[in-house]
């Protein structure tokens, strides 16, 4: 993927905004969700919604650290757009009767840990750590999950919403890969040393320790819902393919690290990686919800209502 002009991209982002009220959430088609689909879809949508929301918070951190005004503004928009996706997905859940009252779907423990980590440490992370992890999450989870969803759900409103969401996501990925290439333009050795210094940061180690089981947990969840494992892996390999397309991209040490990690995740026979990480998933699954700190207030900004007076 060739690098994009970020100023033009910002103008494009501003001119292609949409709102929840652009979609008729009461239009016919909700009945196309089968009884068999419903419980699995509920879990699936909750996970998807939380991934979008977590992605939103990561973009908020990126906006704080972005090296240029244009990129800062782009990330501010992406932060809001990911929130819009989460809101739209909640609106779909409500349409399908998956929300009770005003309740926000409960995030799983791994997500709760990631939320906590993002809240405490994301703003302290260098821009290129999240700048590389976020495209991976978007391409792998978002990409694979959205494709799967559209293949299995016939409701036209769902297709209408995801057409808009996917348009946004393609811009997010375009910027994501451009930024990764920007990072790869300077000397690799220096970047590698700087990166190693960052990797030693205990806050980042905590982040990695939260991110790895989250990926495995999500993999287990989506497979349980019927998504072929290969589709997820294929999406993850897309990250390697696009990110490594240019020399600058390949020279970005964070790309190399995330790419390598992606290879471990997609190789089920890699016991050295999967045995301890799966164990972590099990351990975190045993953490009682009450032991987790209260969710930060940014989580409470989620809403399925297209309009708000308060």
């Amino acid at each position, binding site marked *: 993927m060739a690098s994009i002009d970020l100023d033009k991209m910002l103008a494009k982002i501003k001119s292609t*905004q*949409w*709102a*929840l*009220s652009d979609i008729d959430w009461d239009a016919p088609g909700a009945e196309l969700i089968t009884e068999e689909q419903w419980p699995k879809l509920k879990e699936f949508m909750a996970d998807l919604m939380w991934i979008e929301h977590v992605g939103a918070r990561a973009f908020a951190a990126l906006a*704080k650290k972005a090296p240029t*005004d244009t990129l800062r*503004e782009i990330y*501010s*928009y992406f932060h*809001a*757009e990911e*929130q*819009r996706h989460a*809101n*739209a997905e909640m609106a779909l859940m409500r349409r399908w009767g998956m929300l009770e009252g005003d309740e926000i779907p409960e995030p799983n423990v791994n997500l709760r840990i990631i939320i906590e980590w993002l*809240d405490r440490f994301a*703003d302290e992370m260098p821009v290129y750590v999240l700048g590389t992890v976020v495209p991976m999450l978007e391409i792998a989870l978002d990409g694979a999950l959205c494709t799967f969803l559209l293949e299995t759900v016939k409701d036209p409103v769902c297709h209408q919403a995801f057409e808009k969401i996917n348009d946004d996501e393609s811009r997010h990925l375009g910027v994501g890969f451009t930024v990764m290439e920007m990072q790869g333009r300077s000397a690799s050795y220096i970047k590698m040393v700087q990166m190693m210094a960052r990797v030693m940061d205990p806050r980042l180690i905590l982040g990695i320790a939260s991110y790895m089981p989250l990926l495995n947990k999500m993999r287990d969840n989506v497979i349980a819902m019927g998504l072929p494992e290969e589709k997820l892996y294929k999406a993850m390999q897309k990250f390697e393919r696009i990110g490594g397309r240019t020399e600058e991209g390949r020279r970005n040490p964070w790309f190399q690290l995330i790419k390598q990690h992606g290879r471990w995740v997609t190789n089920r026979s890699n016991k050295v990686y999967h045995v301890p990480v799966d164990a972590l998933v099990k351990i975190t699954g045993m953490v009682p919800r009450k032991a987790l700190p209260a969710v*930060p*207030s*940014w989580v409470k*900004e989620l*809403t399925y*209502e*297209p*309009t*708000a*007076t*308060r």
Partner: protein
Amino acid sequence: MSTTEDSKKTAKPKAPRKKAAAARKTTARRKSTARKKAPEKPLSVLIVGAGFAGLGMAIRLKQAGIEDFIILERGNAVGGTWRDNQYPGAACDIPSNLYSYSFAPNPNWSRSFSGSEEILDYVHHLVAEFGLEKHIRFEQNVAELRFDETKGIWTATTDKDVVFTGRAAVMAQGPLANCSFPAITGIEDFKGKKIHSARWDHDYDFSGKNVAVVGTGASGIQIIPELVKVAKHVKVFQRTPGWVMPRPDFSTPEWNKLLFRKVPASQQAMRELLYWSHESMALAVIWNSPLTRIAERIGKWHLRRQVKDRWLRRQLTPDFTIGCKRVLVSNDYYPALQKDNAKLITWPIARISEEGIRTVEGIEHQVDCIVFATGFDVSHSGTPFPVLGRGGRVMGDDWKGGAQAYKSINVSGYPNLFLTFGPNSGPGHNSALVYMESQLEYALKGIRKIVGEDLKMLDVREDAQQRFNKSIQKRLAKTNWNSGCKSWYLTEDGFNATMYPGFATQYATQMSEFKEEDYQTA
């Protein structure tokens, strides 16, 4: 603080409030008495604008014995920005004892930071006290100012084709006089009430209304706490959080007012104290120094003390060096945002719709009224009306690359013309009126020279102006204003035509010397 002999002699510490109401009645809605044809003999001075600057100039002219001048005011009352900015909570963020003229002290300020109404009373007091009323021509909106080189006369033509002439002209129309609704997509679609902070609608009843406030600058943070008290719900749309410092605002005890009345020197001493304490702030606000870090710590402490929620605190934490934009002062802004009927929205605005404001997170925030606290139309490269100088040159054209002047007050090619709040005269840390007094004294020197020596032309040399600007831009490059944030101080290209890069004392020194060799005369 520099004052001239004249100003010291004529200081009259009298109470403005007593005469204010009467003054307002007499000055308001006064009709023009000008003739369509210019009088045979030009006046000595034409002043454009009856705000602080224009009235201050008039007072100093009178004190200097120059009586044949007029003030052309486009409105029907005096007061300029303080007449226009009467929104709830409007107040000055500089202590009143410093935000007033040293040649017209007011011992009766009710608070350390007075509200706009009291400041406007003070302005009316100036009119009454110094007998300025007869000099003011209301509802005369100047549409063009043109210099006649052969006669050495400035001609002001109003939008109703009324003509006034003067040997010298003072542009005192104010830098913050014009405002408009911001160019947000869909703003014309909104069916509810739209109010600009500088054109407040006092008849609109906010009680029981859902209100949006766009903008969290100096006006926004004063309006919001007042609206939260009366409106049903207030949504505050913030683009960039500013640095908000605590506001040491106290009501003035009666004994203090009495002391200032009986012993004017005590008020002068207070003014000096305030002046020097503000001067010291320059070290934190104008340049990036260890004091800047201390000021930022005070700002963060203020935020931490008043806002307990981590995310809200993050939303309100500025990401630019303090001083880069106007430093805000408030004790009640942060608490107001946390009231049950208030909410801070930091999502970017996507557009305005018929019912409210759509933000990028996809939600339409429906409201009855939108208050735009979005500031003023500040021109960095033009003039509010065409100003034509020697050989028909147009100041707006000369300023296309950014406004430039000599010592902020004269522009080469535009003889006998004096600017107030001209290019690079803005303070970031001290009272604007302190800077204004220096400008008035300088203009007075020039006018005296023109009138006294019967000059047709007193024009600053091009090379002197260029030398001055080269030096000022070099100094500006090292300031916080030019450190990377976007603000109304800068043009889109980042050129700073607004601020003075130094202490008020430096500015006063710059203005105290009238270098005749920098001018050509005829």
